[in-house]
């Protein structure tokens, strides 16, 4: 027979367990500072990896190649809703690319480019994606490194 104190401890544990799924689903974003049209500081302490970035860009679930084409001829299904990614590194600095990935809407509210590292201001996000950015900070840095390497 449990004593009242045990019962209340058990109730707390149950409450904590019930709260878990929501807490586990939600992520907090790392803070970043926008300077002009760029985010000068990387979101992570380790540098982005070009090869991982390329693999991410051509991966359909990252969503890049749904709209963009680029210098990856092995990919049959590329979109043309947005500019080609070829030569990105000649047009933009890493800092500029970072903001364009993190929150392109901060530069152009009408853009169809999703904000890949943002949680607020979204409507009716599906349960599988709720509380998560489209890409993690590490993935953003990998893609920034890859895009910056694309020079013309």
């Amino acid at each position, binding site marked *: 027979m449990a004593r009242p104190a045990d019962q209340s401890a058990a109730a707390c544990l149950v409450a904590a367990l019930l709260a878990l799924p929501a807490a586990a689903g939600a992520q907090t974003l790392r803070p970043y500072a926008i300077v002009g049209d760029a985010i000068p500081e990387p979101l992570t302490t380790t540098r982005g990896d070009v090869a991982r970035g390329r693999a991410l860009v051509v991966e359909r679930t990252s969503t890049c190649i749904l709209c963009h084409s680029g210098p990856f001829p092995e990919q049959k299904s590329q*979109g043309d809703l947005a500019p080609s990614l070829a030569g990105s590194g000649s047009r933009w600095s890493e800092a500029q690319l970072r903001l364009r990935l993190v929150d392109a809407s901060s530069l152009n509210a009408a853009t169809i480019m*999703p904000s890949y590292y943002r949680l607020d201001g979204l409507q009716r996000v*599906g349960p599988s994606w709720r509380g998560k950015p489209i890409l993690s900070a590490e993935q953003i840095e990998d893609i920034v490194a890859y895009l910056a390497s694309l020079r013309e």
Partner: protein
Amino acid sequence: MRLAGTIVAALLLADAAGATEIPTAERRSGYSFMTPETQTIQDDETANPGLLWALDGEALWKRKAGTADKACADCHGDASTSMKGIAAHYPAFDKALGHPVDLGQRINLCRTDHQKASPLAYESRDLLALTALVARQSQGAAIETGSDPQLEPFIAKGRELFMQRQGQLNLGCANCHDDNWDKRLAGSAITQAHPTGYPQYRLEWQSLGSLQRRLRACITGVRAQAYDYGAPELVELELYLMSRARGMPIEAPAVRP
């Protein structure tokens, strides 16, 4: 003056939504975006898989159902005459319910009200078969959905839903289907989203499917929470899309990639 005011207001609204609606003269069915091979599958009566559902529908039309022990044919006779042009008016306003219903919902209302039978599940073979049979009788007829003034507030809600950005990708239907219909998403034609051929056979589905199924897939595509089958929002979207396709010929059962 008032007309000028209305035009200005309409332009402001269109601008606020960031989308330009497609001019009537530039409307194109999804059919025109397809390869000649896929067009042939739709056009050839021996090759269009959607017609298998319509054939099933013919058998169901004559089969008695429910405690009223009545078949569709007992009240409506031969579908090829009684159902001619009917689908071209759907979704339509239902006076008893006070809101629009789509063709599948109308068939189910007939089942529950008149046949005293249980409603058929959304996307079930039988509901798609009956819907295909009825829709087929409007093949070639011009879409007339939305002419009933009672539908106006529901069309407006559908339009609002079409423009609204949603989901993790934060995109609205209009971002692609009004503003970028001539482009390709991952290599596939985007199209203008005129629902001229539902229920339609999608090669991707390997099945016939409803417009609600297609809408739910698109909503999930932008990583938003899909509305449940039968939700008012889906019917309002169907209604808006059909009213915007007014005058275009019905192709049901269409074939799409």
